[in-house]
């Protein structure tokens, strides 16, 4: 078996735009466009980008919660885009997801015990009553919640505790891979740190593999081994997280990381302020989608989308002028 748990090749998700009286397709949004990447076993790949760049669509396409339009997703060597519904359900036991909003993603009418037992029921795990109870308590212990939480309802918990319940639910079926879609974005700073620590501990103890989606670049950089940057549906750069701050090749990555406010008033750093907004994905610019906001853009950039350049095993980018990144 290869060292990669997940291998994604040329994944594309197109949303048609219908218009006119007949509801014909008048255009399309490529929410995810020709994206390829791999995630090693036990690794965390961070996924960052501005709102609307396709992070969430990509995360959900991997689990086929959104059906990809084309491309391949190999999980443990199996192309899951070819599986039928029953086989896919079986496969989802190994692939779970944690959502952003811990208030909306827990059923308020179910007890925590019921919430955690549901995925086990669906997948027919821990059928023996005593065994299941043991497993539930073990899960609560893993996410550091007290055992009496089992009979409580979600509204009795704070945001941070609810997110722990969501994590426990994802762990209930003993997955190998978890898509974490902005799991700490809704939490306060001090609680956010607790949940980030918990996730890193769980990863170490259970050998989990994460795709960690977030718009908070500091958290992503902290938790991830490698980080992928998306812009308008395309993956523009992938690099080891410590390389991104100083060694980024793509001008968008540079701009994105320089925009983070630095919580240290003693240093002033040069900031690249991008002009304008993200262009509309319905009508993306020609060539490299970033060229209207890029200060190095040439005619080549306006002509065609840059191919992937693999600088090393861990660092790849899509840019024609990767070395002139200062502004």
């Amino acid at each position, binding site marked *: 078996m290869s060292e990669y748990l997940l291998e994604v090749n040329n994944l594309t998700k197109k949303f048609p735009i219908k218009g006119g009286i007949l509801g014909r397709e008048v255009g399309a949004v490529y929410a995810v466009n020709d994206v390829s990447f791999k995630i090693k076993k036990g690794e965390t790949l961070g996924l960052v980008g501005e709102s609307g760049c396709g992070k969430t669509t990509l995360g959900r396409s991997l689990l086929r919660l959104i059906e990809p339009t084309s491309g391949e997703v190999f999980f443990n060597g199996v192309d899951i885009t070819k599986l039928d519904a029953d086989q896919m359900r079986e496969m989802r036991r190994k692939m779970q997801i944690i959502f952003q909003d811990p208030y909306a993603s827990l059923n308020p009418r179910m007890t925590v015990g019921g919430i955690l037992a549901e995925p086990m029921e669906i997948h027919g795990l821990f059928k023996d009553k005593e065994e299941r109870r043991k497993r539930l308590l073990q899960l609560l212990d893993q996410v550091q919640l007290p055992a009496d939480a089992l009979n409580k309802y979600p509204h009795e918990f704070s945001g941070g*505790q609810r997110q722990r319940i969501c994590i426990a639910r994802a762990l209930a079926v003993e997955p190998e891979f978890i898509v974490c879609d902005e799991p700490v974005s809704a939490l306060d700073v001090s609680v956010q740190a607790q949940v980030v620590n918990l996730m890193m501990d769980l990863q170490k103890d259970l050998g989990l593999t994460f795709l960690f989606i977030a718009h908070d670049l500091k958290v992503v950089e902290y938790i991830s081994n490698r980080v992928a940057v998306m812009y308008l549906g395309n993956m523009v750069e992938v690099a080891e997280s410590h390389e991104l701050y100083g060694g980024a090749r793509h001008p968008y990555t540079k701009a994105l990381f320089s925009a983070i406010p630095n919580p240290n008033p003693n240093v002033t750093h040069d900031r690249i302020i991008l002009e304008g907004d993200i262009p509309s994905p319905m009508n993306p610019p020609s060539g490299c989608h970033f060229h209207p906001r890029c200060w190095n853009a040439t005619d080549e950039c306006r002509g065609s989308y840059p191919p992937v350049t693999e600088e090393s095993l861990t660092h790849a980018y899509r840019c024609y002028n990767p070395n002139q990144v200062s502004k």
Partner: protein
Amino acid sequence: MAEKILEIKDLCVEFNTDRGRIRAVNGVNLEVFKGKTLGVVGESGSGKSVTALSVMRLIPSPPGKIARGTIDYRGENLLDIPFDEMRRIRGNKIAMIFQEPMTSLNPVFTVGNQIEEVLELHQTELSKEQRREKAIEMLRLVGIPSPDKRITEYPHQLSGGMRQRVMIAMSLACEPDILIADEPTTALDVTIQAQILELMNKLQKELGMGIIMITHDLGVVAETCDDVAVMYCGQIVERAEVKELFNHPQHPYTKGLIESIPSFDSTTGERKDRLPTIEGMVPSLFDLPDGCNFQDRCDFATDKCRGSEGEPVLKSIGTNHDAACFHPLS
């Protein structure tokens, strides 16, 4: 020393709820100076927004009530003046930007209408044409391209960053003395956040207004503020000049907040093993402990903190540096 334009003294705001009365803001003292930015940081429910709304006299009453205190704006106590008078000040002398640019604009009026409305209310001497001109000028000032076209558009036609610019244009139309910005960039992406903060900074230099910047993001504080007040459970637990606060935090809560931001040592590429955290959670306002509100989460808590000598009060512990703690870190 810059001119002091706003002074909040001993402000207490209470809310009546089904579960009893809570004190959302408890004895807050703050000062705002001309041309300076005061940061107010804290977690959700710490009383930041309620403090800001009190200055605007926008606390919904009932259930809310300003129980005590004064808000002194250029020699006038805003809490004593009649409602009509307050209307003249609100939006004109003291303006506010809200967090949600999506819900704070009226979807059925063009952005031009909405900026002109502010001028119509407060600058009655302007003619209709002058108002339109001023509105276009304001949109240009906040960096919206082709403002003469944008002015006829509706909020849904603008992106989040653009809408927040419109909000800023609206709040600055009357060239206020004080701008209260309640989480102005929280709903925006970092690249747009950088644009907006830069814009506010530039406008502050041009117009010389005092800003109250309410945020939970210490990065934003470090980059934009001159002075910072840290709030916890409705009280100010520490207040200092921005560099002093980050370099020498005195209250364990402030220190915990600063440390729990993920940082990355980009020179070595080494990652810290674990993020330092503040254990536990913010106590409920219905059930605050005796003594210091932070005692259950504090490593240094003693009997003194648990109420044997009452609540810690905010007192000076250095040059322009106050903390409400029995055991300041120093």
